């Protein structure tokens, strides 16, 4: 036990959800004098709760899927072989950890930890330069907005710096509303100071007088850590930018996807409905309460200290012409190792999905990039390098970095329906094409997955999609049709199977499948009969009445013999 210097417990939201807190409590109880620290996210969500034991000789050993029981805890404290976790070799060789360098390594709310690891040295360096020199460095780095738009960050800074106004507003977009993305959450929870350091540098360079962080309320831990970190900044007077003090205020979002759009976010910060407006004037001309305002995303700010530390030229050595530096991706869906990864721009989709994510090469159908604003990219195109421009050319977008792997067992029409369900509800209603158009697209897709679609519906979807793109003011509307247009482009055959043959090849669309009991496997335990919420399974001969069945999958889940499954429509009918 004496070999151990300290124990780090991954206690970001994912870790906590996976059960890190009981593990932490038990470790603290059993570890004696060894410090047990709550740290952020290492990105290996599939192995949570994840523990790192740092040895006195400097080495470290990790333990994955730890449980709060004697065996697990003893394994850790005795540095046993059992339960050890190794970062998969494929991931190790492809990943390039820069922005997340301190995530999971330091205590997020500990000022000294951040300082001891070079924290705020970039700010000090910046404060010794002229504001213009800082902007030039960011321009040289080639950094583009990580929120999805990909606008060159240095240029944006230049616009705000050029303004003379009584107040200039800096806003950090931490409203990670894209379902399936959690890069910003992880960065804020794990290293809150890094993004704040980026904000302070930006405030110095642009002459901003007030700063807001617009963070979604669904991220309580991120908000808590940011509040503590801001308090520490004030305490150490680090918000003093060469004699000019800046206040940083956290505003909690209230659950509206459209507020990720710049002008909508500004309205929300003003206490109004988060409705976007026409641009120009751009926010850097007239934003919050009419003052020049600039919005950057969490990850963008998170990159800034790196750029200042290593220099713009050095930073720009990584990546491609279509994107410089590294990018964080939240990998989820049908793959072995979901989690948060950081990779150099220009890496291929295949490397991310297969080498890092450990997805089954024979099982993957596509990957959805950019969430509801993005599109899916079929496995055939996985040799595409990942940067802003190449993904756009495929009908997807880089987006903020959510990447959902979709296996062959999923229906692409249903996936598109899901996204339109989301966007049509999140449409703020201002632009007719977006408000009505996305609703019509959604209804059409509902019809198709219910087996009532017609071939002409596909033309309708395409026509509507292109009109919504052109007729909407903001990014939400302009990109809302992407998931449908991309699936129509790459998976038209699936749409055709739904509308022509009324079949769902993936057996996912409830209206196009039957549920059937395989009587060769069935042992007549009647667990399914008992479980079925609608009484659709007959007790005497264990047959599913497909007219009553709601396709809730309860019976399939409870069957101990896996004798119940979904089959093609018509095949489950009692003979």
């Amino acid at each position: 036990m004496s070999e151990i210097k300290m124990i780090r417990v991954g206690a970001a939201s994912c870790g906590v959800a996976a059960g890190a807190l009981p593990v932490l409590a038990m470790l603290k109880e059993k570890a004696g004098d060894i410090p047990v620290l709550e740290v952020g996210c290492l990105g290996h969500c599939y192995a949570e709760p994840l523990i790192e034991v740092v040895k006195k000789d400097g080495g470290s050993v990790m333990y994955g899927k730890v449980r709060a029981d004697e065996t697990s805890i003893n394994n850790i404290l005795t540095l046993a072989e059992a339960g050890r976790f190794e970062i998969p070799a494929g991931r190790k060789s492809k990943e390039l950890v820069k922005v997340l360098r301190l995530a999971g390594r330091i205590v997020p709310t500990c000022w000294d930890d951040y300082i001891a690891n070079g924290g705020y040295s970039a700010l000090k360096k910046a404060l010794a330069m002229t504001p213009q020199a800082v902007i030039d460095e960011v321009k040289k780095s080639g950094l583009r907005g990580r929120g999805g738009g990909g606008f060159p960050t240095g240029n944006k800074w230049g616009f705000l710096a050029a303004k003379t106004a009584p107040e200039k507003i800096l806003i950090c977009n931490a409203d990670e509303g894209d379902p399936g993305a959690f890069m910003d959450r992880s960065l804020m929870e794990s290293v809150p100071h890094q993004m704040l350091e980026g904000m302070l540098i930006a405030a110095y360079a642009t002459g901003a007088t007030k700063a807001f962080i617009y963070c979604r309320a669904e991220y309580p831990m991120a908000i808590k850590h940011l509040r503590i970190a801001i308090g520490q900044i004030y305490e150490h007077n680090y918000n003093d930018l060469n004699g000019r003090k800046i206040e940083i205020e956290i505003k909690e979002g209230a659950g509206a996807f459209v507020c990720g759009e710049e002008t909508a976010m500004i309205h929300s910060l003003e206490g109004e409905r988060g409705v976007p407006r026409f641009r120009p004037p751009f926010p850097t001309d007239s934003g919050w309460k009419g003052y020049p305002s600039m919005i950057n995303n969490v990850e963008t700010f998170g990159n800034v200290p790196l750029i200042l530390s290593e220099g713009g030229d050095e930073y720009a050595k990584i990546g491609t012409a279509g994107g410089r530096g590294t990018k964080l991706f939240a990998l989820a869906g049908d793959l072995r190792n979901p989690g948060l990864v950081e990779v150099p721009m220009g890496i291929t989709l295949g490397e991310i999905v297969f080498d890092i994510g450990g997805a089954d090469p024979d099982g993957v159908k596509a990957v959805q990039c950019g969430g509801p604003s993005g599109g899916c990219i079929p496995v055939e195109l996985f040799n595409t390098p990942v940067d802003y421009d190449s993904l756009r050319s495929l009908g997807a977008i880089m987006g903020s970095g959510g990447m959902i792997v979709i296996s062959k067992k999923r229906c692409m029409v249903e996936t598109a329906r899901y996204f339109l369900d989301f966007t049509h509800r999140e449409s703020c209603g201002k632009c007719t094409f977006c408000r009505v158009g996305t609703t019509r697209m959604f209804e059409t897709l509902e019809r198709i997955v219910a087996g009532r679609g017609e071939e002409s519906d596909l033309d309708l979807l395409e026509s509507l999609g292109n009109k919504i793109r052109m007729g909407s003011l903001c990014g939400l509307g302009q990109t809302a049709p992407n998931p449908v247009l991309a699936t129509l482009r790459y998976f038209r055959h699936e749409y055709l199977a739904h509308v022509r043959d009324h079949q769902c090849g993936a057996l996912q669309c409830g209206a196009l499948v039957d549920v059937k009991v395989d009587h060769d496997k069935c042992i007549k335990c009647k667990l399914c009969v008992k479980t079925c919420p609608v009484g659709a399974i007959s007790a005497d001969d264990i047959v599913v009445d497909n007219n009553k069945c709601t396709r809730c999958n309860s019976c399939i889940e409870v069957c101990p013999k896996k004798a119940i499954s979904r089959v093609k429509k018509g095949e489950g009918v009692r003979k």
Partner: protein
Amino acid sequence: MGNFSYLSGIEPESSNLIKALQLVQAKEGYVSDDAIVEVAAYFKLAPVEVEGVLSFYAQFKRVKPGRFQIAVCDGTACHIKGSNSVFKWVSNELGISDGETDADGLFSLFTVACLGCCSLAPVMSVNGTVYGNLDRKKVAKIIKEYRAK
């Protein structure tokens, strides 16, 4: 009428309106008609202006929720991993649908866009505590545990 004196901690400046409504919801569990009138008076706005802002945001509840609020995540990863089944299981177990509260006032059920724990999909949260990698058994067990509380 309830006591909304805690509003005095917030500066009555229009850009703080959402913050005030969030505070009301944190204290009361929802935003009642009374609360809207109080908040409007505090900010020197018309109640309809407050309701206009409030109705835009999904976070605000206008009906008193149950003691345990179950949020089934329907983010992309959860959806891909079968969140609609999770929703049906919970809904069947409690006998209520999206946005409803059961007769005893014990459980409320609703779907949310994303809880940000995508790698543990499918997930749901009960009063903010996230439960991941759900299957039917786990869902039933979690609900049973809360029922006993």
